[in-house]
């Protein structure tokens, strides 16, 4: 049984090659055979509904706490969420938490969105503002925001009219691939702010207990969560906001199937070997 021996000691380069192809092929135009309709999960829908319930001029704080490492999974959600906020005409405060490395990425993305015809009339410091980066821990950030929201970030602009403390922020979204926002979850019960998160798929399941207890008012999980949000906003406003998350879903599907196939083959080989009395 040469095949069995070969499968048992399968060269990892073959695995790498197949995974690579499974990610690349669906992205090539014309290879969209793995595109299936995506339905929104209740966690992602919760974020969307809360933004929908905001009034014009309400304040949304985005805690942009990820680096370019997690760009593929989290940036599409940021784009869709930010466009949704602009559509709802709420004031958007973008703070680059956790790492200075994310700031360039966030500012470039915002710049590209603001160059779109439908948003080009909006002004920095009036409709949205970059709060930049300050070396400060999340729990200190919350306490500072409770005391003096504007003073914490030392920024100026018309956008701060009516926004004095954390109480004036109507919704906070944390976007991260780490445990940075744990103090936001812990202190949510004390300061009564609405706090939701968009995270990488790796840490999504860890946050489900917090969503169940209401300490998180919404949760977007990985690339799929971003694709769900793109769909929700696109359908609601009848615009084409389908971006890289929707495109990436077919890659996600095929790569999952490849991993699933390898696990299946690995188990078949294991059981045949065991039946023969091998290790």
């Amino acid at each position, binding site marked *: 049984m040469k095949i069995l021996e070969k499968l048992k000691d399968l060269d990892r380069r073959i695995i*790498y090659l197949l995974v690579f192809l499974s990610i690349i092929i669906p992205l090539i135009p014309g290879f969209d055979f793995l595109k299936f309709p*995506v339905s929104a999960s209740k966690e992602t829908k919760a974020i969307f509904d809360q933004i929908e319930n905001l009034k014009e001029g309400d304040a949304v704080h985005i805690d942009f706490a990820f680096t*370019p490492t997690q760009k593929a999974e989290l940036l599409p959600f940021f784009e869709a969420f930010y466009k949704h906020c602009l559509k709802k005409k709420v004031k958007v405060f973008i703070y680059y938490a956790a790492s200075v490395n994310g700031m360039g990425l966030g500012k470039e993305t915002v710049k590209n969105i603001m160059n779109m015809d439908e948003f080009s009339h909006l002004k920095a410091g009036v409709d949205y503002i970059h709060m930049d980066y300050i070396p400060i821990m999340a729990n200190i950030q919350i306490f500072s925001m409770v*005391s003096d929201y504007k003073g914490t970030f030392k920024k100026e602009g018309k956008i701060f009219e009516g926004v004095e403390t954390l109480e004036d922020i109507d919704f906070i979204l944390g976007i991260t691939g780490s445990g940075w926002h744990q103090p936001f979850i812990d202190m949510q019960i004390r300061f009564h702010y609405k706090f939701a998160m968009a995270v990488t798929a790796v840490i999504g399941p860890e946050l*489900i*207990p917090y969503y169940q207890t209401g300490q998180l008012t919404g949760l977007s999980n990985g690339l799929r969560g971003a694709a769900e949000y793109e769909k929700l906003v696109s359908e609601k406003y009848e615009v084409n906001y389908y971006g890289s998350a929707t495109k990436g879903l077919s890659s996600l599907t095929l790569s*999952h199937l490849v991993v699933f196939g390898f696990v299946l083959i690995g*188990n078949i080989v294991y059981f045949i070997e065991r039946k023969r009395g091998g290790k």
Partner: protein
Amino acid sequence: MKKEIPILLGLIAAILWYGEFFIAGMFFDNMKMFFSDGMKIGGVVGIMIGAYSVGRQNYFKIKYNNERYYAILRVSMIFLMIFLGWARGTSLGTPFSSVFFNVYIPFQATVFALLAFYIASAAYRSFKAKSIESAVLLIASVFVMLSKITLGEAMWDKIPVIGEWIVDAPSSAGRRAIIFGGYLGMITMMIRIFFGLERSHLSE
């Protein structure tokens, strides 16, 4: 005094922070701002210490030929970024941001993307139903995997329901136990630091 002062500082910080959390309004607003400004200053000092540490480490690597060329490359890149930022600024459209977007971001994204390849290889070699427990884990993971891709829903509309139940009920219950355990440990550690029993952070 080298030990006593940090222990005393730990005690004061514990009283203030935990007291503040349980007794709302214990501080005046400007007191809170004092702490936040103090943290910012601490953060800046931390960055300076980090820069010194990186400089020192690479200096010795270059001096004693311990991966000398990597160290030279690392230091050169640091100085290049400092020079670009100093010469033309760091805003969008400058050489600094160009290097950031065209070199740094692809590098970082590549490192993270490599995970997918390692996971596939590791899953093939080790994810086997060797016992009842591992078989249950395997079946659960297959359902969760399928529920996360759009194909799963297209195959059978109950797959997302089963996958969601696994994440919401058994997985979440286990996670909750870990969270409780972690927080109890943190409270214990706080009490130990409060009474000066825990001194590992003072290099003891």
